[in-house]
């Protein structure tokens, strides 16, 4: 099911969704992405370099936030631009819960060429972890 440009208005919201992040997800993301930075899997070294604990790959958070846009748009190939700033690390403790990302979106602008700009809000532990997160999506 795809959403249509003509049915979208500025200010439309995309409902909030939660995504769980546990250590296993980071290990899998290391393997899939090729980014084996020790701060994503080694608590000892993460703390040694001054982090509170192992932190999630920024790219993992960026990927989860994108799901809110791609599921809304219907066709994930509709995403033309996607940009974020990583404002706070997502700390992933070694327990049964890990961290939870909460992502919501809003239509910020309608552009020509059936394109819309979605601004995303992503929090973990009540703090914004992505700032200026925007996706430009080309709709039917």
């Amino acid at each position, binding site marked *: 099911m795809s959403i249509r440009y003509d049915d979208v208005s500025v200010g439309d919201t995309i409902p909030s969704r939660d995504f769980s992040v546990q250590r296993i997800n980071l290990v899998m993301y290391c393997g899939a992405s090729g980014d084996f*930075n020790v701060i994503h899997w080694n608590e000892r070294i993460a703390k040694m370099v001054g982090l509170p604990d192992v932190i999630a790959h920024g790219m993992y958070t960026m990927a989860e936030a994108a799901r809110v846009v791609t599921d809304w748009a219907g066709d994930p190939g509709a995403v033309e631009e996607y*940009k974020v700033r990583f404002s706070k690390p997502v700390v992933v403790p070694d327990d049964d819960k890990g961290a939870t990302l909460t992502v919501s979106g809003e239509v910020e602008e309608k552009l020509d060429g059936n394109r819309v700009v979605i601004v995303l809000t992503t929090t973990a532990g009540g703090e914004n972890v992505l700032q200026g997160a925007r996706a430009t999506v080309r709709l039917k």
Partner: protein
Amino acid sequence: MPLNREFIGRAFPASAPYEVSRVKIKDFANAIGDNNPAYLDTAEAQKLGHPDVIAPPTFAIVISFQMGAQVVFDPALGLDYSRVVHGEQSFSYTRPIHAGDVLIGAPRIVDIRDAGRNEALTWEAVITTVDGEHVCTAVNTLISRGTAATA
């Protein structure tokens, strides 16, 4: 130790061609927990008008990371990767990446600057097909924690 500012503006050689496979896209989608059929099922992707399964919007990081390894791990740059966190990332697509694409790109260091006690290194990868068709430009800012000369 501050980063070597002589690297500002430096262009690196093009990476070896990266062949995008259905299996790799599936692995990546699995790692981010996204079972969107456009990533997993060729017939479903074709219903949306794509030639084969497409990659998630952040998949270009896999390719740009391979290209960027020669930047990040060049000893003369002086970057301690355990001190690195990701600062900013953007992707600008001409079209989605799909299985069967053979992609190349040459990284270039755009800027290295102080950001408080940290340093920020921005580099970009322009990703094209081997035939020169633009697919994605990825711009990546890495933060090197606590390495600014004034820190």
